[in-house]
């Protein structure tokens, strides 16, 4: 879609050409659980930090897949690593390590 430079709502355009496959594979190598997320949002529902700031691991994973790693990192900044999300995850994702791994891989410039 052509960007005319103005709009009534903020652009929600997703440009998948910007998706960094190399980094995603790196992340999946470090924490393979990233692939098995089914985006149910249980993690978001129980999130301790989510009560104060819009924090959501589900959204962060989606953001990464949608080539918005910067948004994902920002989304995870308030996280306190309390581990509630890992306890409720129906897929048994090691969420704490996933969050640390996302930080580790996508913070590198």
């Amino acid at each position, binding site marked *: 879609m052509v960007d005319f430079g103005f709009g009534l709502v903020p652009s929600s355009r997703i440009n998948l050409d910007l998706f960094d496959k190399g980094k995603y594979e790196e992340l999946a190598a470090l*924490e393979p*659980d990233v692939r098995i997320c089914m985006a149910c949002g249980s993690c978001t529902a*129980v999130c*301790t*930090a989510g*009560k*104060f*700031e819009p924090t959501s691991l589900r959204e962060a994973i989606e953001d990464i897949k949608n080539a918005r790693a910067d948004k994902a*990192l*920002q989304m995870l*900044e*308030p*996280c*306190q*690593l*309390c*581990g*509630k999300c890992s*306890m*409720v995850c129906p897929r*048994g994702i*090691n969420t*704490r*390590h996933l969050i*640390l791994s996302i*930080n*580790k891989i996508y*913070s590198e410039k």
Partner: protein
Amino acid sequence: MTPLSYLLAAQAEVPEVIDRIPSGFSYFVIPFTVGVAFMFCWLGVGLIRLLADIPKEDRIKFGKSLFIPKVALKNIKELFCDCLFHVKIWQRKPLLGYMHSAIAFGWFMIIILGHIEVALFVPARLNVTRGGLFYPIFYRYFVWMNPGHTTLRGSFFFFLMDFFLLYILSGIALAIFKRFRSIVLGMRHTTKPSFADRVALYSLWMIFPLRLLAESFTADLSGGSFLTIPVNQFWHFLFGDKLWFMPCWWAYSICLGLFFAAMPFSRYMHILTEVLWILLRNAGVKPNHPRKGVAEAEIYACSSCGLCLDACPMNVQKKNLKYSSVYFIRFLRRHNEKKINAIADKCLMCDKCHALCPVGVDAPALRRAQRATVNNTMPYNYAYLDASGSVQPSEPGRVHSRFAAAENGLSPESAPADSTQPCHANPGVLYFAGCMTHLTPRIIKSVEKVFKAAGVEYAFADREGGICCGRPLMLAGRTDAAAKVIEANKQMIEASGCKTLVLSCPICYKIFKEEYHLEGINVVHYTQFINELIAAGRLDVKKTDEKIVYHDPCELGRGCGVYLEPRAALSQVGTLVKASKEYDESICCGGSLGSLTLDTHDRAKISQASLQALLSGNPETIVTACPLCLKTFSEAVSRGENLEQHVKVKDFAEAICP
């Protein structure tokens, strides 16, 4: 028989011991001297480097601690008990304890007695310029006993030397046996020795048999006792009058030299470093880096004995052996960055290896420090903590007031009889549930039930959900971020004006006790609090004949030393049965937040092992005092793999107030 006094007097005139070799030197001492000199140089440089790496204030603290009588006494006690007698191993595995103390204490006594002998009979030789370094070690080679002038004193030393040599030899025999059948001595797994370990190990095995050989060959010249004299007579019987004893002394010296030269690179470094580590530990100096300074002393104090291999809950699967503390420390020692990080992240931080370590090496703390080198610099944004910490939440619609209790003063939640009291009538008890308890609301429910039954006036700090205690951040190595969270919680608790803080999560309890420094506030775990309520007669409990087994949560038991209170309370409501592993040997439930990379499959295996240990006494109910354990065990029991009997899993408060 000649009186003793006469013998002692006679000794003054006719020397009992004559320097057989006037120069006091023989070429065979060279290997030993070179080896030992190399070791001392290496250790000297290492010690200076190590002390230089310790921050200045810690160094001063360490220096001062040596002169504080209380610490000095503790030092002396621990040096004897840990380094020489290995009391901690004795208590757990008597045969292993015997083996270690035989070699350590026996060798120590032989060295000391050798020096005493030289000091008594040829004092001039103690001087370093006249062979003081090697003379006492090879004393028996250099002297000749004046026949007919041996005193009781001399015989006494002969006896002691032979006695301790036999003592060491029995230890060595056990050590060699252990290499092949360690299970007999109580060890399922042993560490794989590295190359330097092997060199040192085989020379250590050889040293004492060779010493016996060497001393027995010269026993007719330089004296001996019940062990060396008969062996000497046997050699005479075999080889006739003339004995060629030089090869034995050479071999003995070479083995000693090899051992000392290999020592700095092998696990036997612990013999000397342990001393430094005990002094540092008792001075209260903590490692601030996973490899430098205090940590280095800790790393080199590890004896690589492998007792942590059997202790580690991960090792129910053999593939996880490589993540044990002993290998973590070995790779730290070798600066193998890649392996260190993988191992550091795997650990459940259940602290069992630390609790069972005979040297007291705090490997979990080193793992935390190692995690910090990777994770501490990660970005975080806790601005919301300050915003919501103020009285006015910045976004009322979105931000919950996590300080409901603090803002209104402590308002009693349970309605007591005299509820006419104003809100600021401080009940003194603040209950902080924590994240994990909020995930298991049954705990909150039953804790409140207990409070109500006992008529406790309390305030609920985080009914609407609070923030994390900071311990999970600490465990992940994010100490700076944890400090922020701690600060925010601390403000809230201090503002509440409570006198007692009750926690239902051991993870919170540990960090509140250790890092919060809440002055004037009694921080208790709810097991302790409820036990006090029962003891004070405020809470009525009904005794049933339910068979209960209590699981010690890692952070509560090994972490904070709370073992007895929950058991005392539980014995009031049912019959406590024993688990096959309990107290400091209890096995982690597998749900620990400590591990960063352990996957669900491995965790389930650990839960199974832990359940097996708990069910050994055929209990009807498993009671635990940690929301994580409760959740993990509930899930494991409902999966029901390999479970013959059906058990209920209950929280501590549920068990007390059903």
